[in-house]
């Protein structure tokens, strides 16, 4: 590193840890305190590391996600890398896994409920309350109108075929199980998931 350091520049480079070093002992402590106001925090100060799994293929590579609070205070993903401790991928990632950060932070992430009304040419925002109430109302009405309690032979069949549910392929077991309970309890038989394809 070929830099002609001024005293000020030297302190900047030494950064936040300076007070605890021999520089602090040499009497630079006060000067540093004055300088700290101008020095940006070390980038990783508020960063968390979290173990996770790549959501793409079924190799299910171990990953480490780095995140830190964004302007709105919510934690945002800043970096994703392979987990070197993972026995299957041993830290490696493919071209998809290596670009995962841009999946999480994609411009096309959905951020608010939307509704497209019959015949409309665009989506428009709707509140969660209204969206969920509309869905619940529609489910109840359709179920009450079309739920088949017995077949022609009088056998109890308790099935509902006019509403269907297509489940995902990358949700957790826990989401899947909860989805199962909800869909089954209503008697929906048009139930499927991406394993089919």
């Amino acid at each position, binding site marked *: 590193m070929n830099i002609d350091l001024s005293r000020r520049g030297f302190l900047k480079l030494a950064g936040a840890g300076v007070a605890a070093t021999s520089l602090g002992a040499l009497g630079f402590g006060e000067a540093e305190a004055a300088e700290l106001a101008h020095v940006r925090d070390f980038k990783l100060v508020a960063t968390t590391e979290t173990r996770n799994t790549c959501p793409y293929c079924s190799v299910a590579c171990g990953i480490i996600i780095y995140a830190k609070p964004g302007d709105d205070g919510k934690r945002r993903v800043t970096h994703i890398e392979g987990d070197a401790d993972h026995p299957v991928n041993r830290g490696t990632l493919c071209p998809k896994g290596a670009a995962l950060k841009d999946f999480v932070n994609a411009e096309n992430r959905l951020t608010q409920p939307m509704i497209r009304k019959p015949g409309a040419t665009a989506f428009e925002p709707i509140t969660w309350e209204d969206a969920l109430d509309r869905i619940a109302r529609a489910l109840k009405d359709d179920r009450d109108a079309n739920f088949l309690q017995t077949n022609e032979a009088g056998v109890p069949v308790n099935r509902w075929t006019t509403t269907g549910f297509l489940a995902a392929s990358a949700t957790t077991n826990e989401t899947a199980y909860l989805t199962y309970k909800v869909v089954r309890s209503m008697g929906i038989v048009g139930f499927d*998931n991406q394993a089919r394809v």
Partner: protein
Amino acid sequence: MTNSWTDIKNTDLVVVMGGNAAEAHPCGFKWVTEAKHHRGAKLIVVDPRFTRTAAVSDYYAPIRPGSDIVFLMALIRWMIENDKVQWDYVKAFTNASFIVKDEFGWSDGLFTGYDEQKRDFDRSSWDYVVGDDGFAVTDPTLQNPRCVWNLLKAHVDAYTPEMVERVCGTPKDRFLKIAEMIGECSSKTKTMTSMYALGWTQHSKGAQNIRGMAMLQLILGNIGVPGGGMNALRGHSNIQGLTDLGLMSNLIPGYLNIPTEKEPDWATYLKSRAFKPLMPGQTSYWQNYPKFMVSFMKAMWGEAAQKDNDWAFHYLPKLDVPAYDMLRMFELMDQDRVNIYFCQGFNPLLAAPNRGKLTRAFSKLKLMVIMDPLETETARFWENHGEYNPVDSAAIQTEVIQLPSSCFAEDEGALVNSGRWLQWHWAAAEPPGDAKLDTWIMAQIFNRVKALYQTEGGVFPDPILNLAWGYADPNEPKPDELAREMNGTALGDVFDPKDAAKMLTAAGKQVKSFAELRDDGSTACGCWIYSGCFNEDGNNMARRDNADPSGLGVHPKWAWSWPLNRRTLYNRASADLNGQPWDPERPIIQWTGEKWEGNDVPDISPTAKPGEVMPFIMNPEGVSRLFSRGMMRDGPFPTHMEPFESPVQNVFNARMRGNPVARVFESDVETFGDASEFPYVATSYRLTEHFHYWTKNNVVNAALQPQGFVELSVQLAEEKGITNGGWVRVWSKRGEIRAKAVVTRRIKPMICDGKPVHVIGIPLHWGFVGAAKKGWGPNSLTPYVGDANIETPEYKAFLVNIEPAVGEAVS
């Protein structure tokens, strides 16, 4: 996968057929590389294209899409003819010696019992002769002409190397070289692994492709052993979990079944699930079905499920058809018989066959609900995108509600990898904007519907009102609560069945495993095969000790594997009749004289004597099946069937189109094309830089492979006047796409039945939303027909035509 990703390093020979692991599962494929480098393993690839897996293989052979059964049956024929059979294994561990009913037979490409009107077989003759004692009759000498082994020999007799050349287009010498390489793995100390994926499943006889290889593996003695197995490389990260949890029309978690109308009561339902052993002294583990089923009903409906109401049996729907799978649902939609449809993290507009039909069907819905972290074409099927989605929005009366959900980085829970490992992950960040966790969304929908039934009443509200919902926050069940529910809980004290004074687990505690489940209502368990994942030891799925003491890639303390943390299924079959490993160099379990122990959790009762209790404990026979009885709709042996759209006729029966028992909807009959109009075979796949339609939303991946294209051979390009990099139009009876042409030597014409057959490869990724260029996918072209057993669509072999196109699409 019967084995795990890390177990692949133990193999001597990898056969990749029906998959392309180097591109589709790159970080798992590294274990093939390990095996090659450290064990001297060889890699064989059989594929219509010279893929990147083929590029690093030791031997490659081309094959016409949809002709795999011929290749596999010919391999079995060659093994038998050349005595490349692991005889001790075949005689003891398969049903080779079982005698089959005299009425069973095969001719003209069809097994006995075919009814052309019903498009179904009467399968009653496809079974064993059962003696007066209730056990199957066998001939251990294999002399009886009606034993499975002799019937198999007769069945595969037609599949000669010449037939392979004629039907598959694979040069005979290439086939023979591969047969020789595979034959070496009949040795007790050499194993082969099969790595396959959607290249085998996406056919109208996909399940039979896989059976063909499973039979070959049994004949070579390669099931249950390290470095062996049938290794389905599942597609998405939790396809395995969603399958295990039974998110399908006809399933209950843990591979239990939704009853049919023919099972109108509990007693009838259980009667056909008695699973009485077919051989003396065998485990027939499904005899425990009632315990798993009652425990599931208790998990679902708690106190409302009691013995005197048959555990709330009528809360479950009863099916009138085998399944309301997605193809049936879209067909019903198209008939105006479906009103509401949910898509949770799924983009069927591009992922289902015959996109034109899907657009039509969706347009007839009253309400579509989307739950997704990203934009999908399905959510915007009504939006006009010029030639990429030429719809008249005003004419589409469907209301669409799009709910923003979290993604993997923002939620906590387990995903099940292809090797059945349940790996827990933690939330790293918060969902953007107002996006919500999927669990919250599902809970909200449920609670609101429940509230409507509480206030208004309505039709049969009982299963909704009584659904077990004992979560600390009813509005947001937590992942650990749900995982504990799947593991199972003792509702009353659970005692040892052999010693009534010995309490195994006290009421209120988590059961240790499914061995503690009971059919008297004293246990609840959401998914019996997961039992043990979150017991009183804690969350075993979150374990992170990556040690591998045996050096065999077992990693027993990393995460948790179903069932019972067992890493290799059927591992009892890795040892001989005395319980000693076939290969002393690769011991996973062995019999000590008193019990089974070793590097993996034994897949058998720990004290089951090796000469008496056979390894395939789930089967009533105790052995594996070379002959699958009446369990598959299209035959007890795989028999050659052409794709529904094929350039050649079935050599066994020129009248037979596709799979003779695959379901075909009347409205789709007219949409199948034939070779006179559509002379070229098309197949679909994805590129290593892309993941289906998701990565369209990712600028990095979209930029890595920006341009939609199709691949074709130099010969076909010359014939049609197509230039490399020029535009082409590709069309089928169902639709058309435009793309750039990649003229490549990786695809070569084949000669089948005396005629040249050209293959066109159509990668998938492109659509009309996202960061990628707009384009089309193969499913604008694919046929609307699925596998006869499981309805997986036939994406891997269909007919198209191609011509040069002028001008670039304006987006």
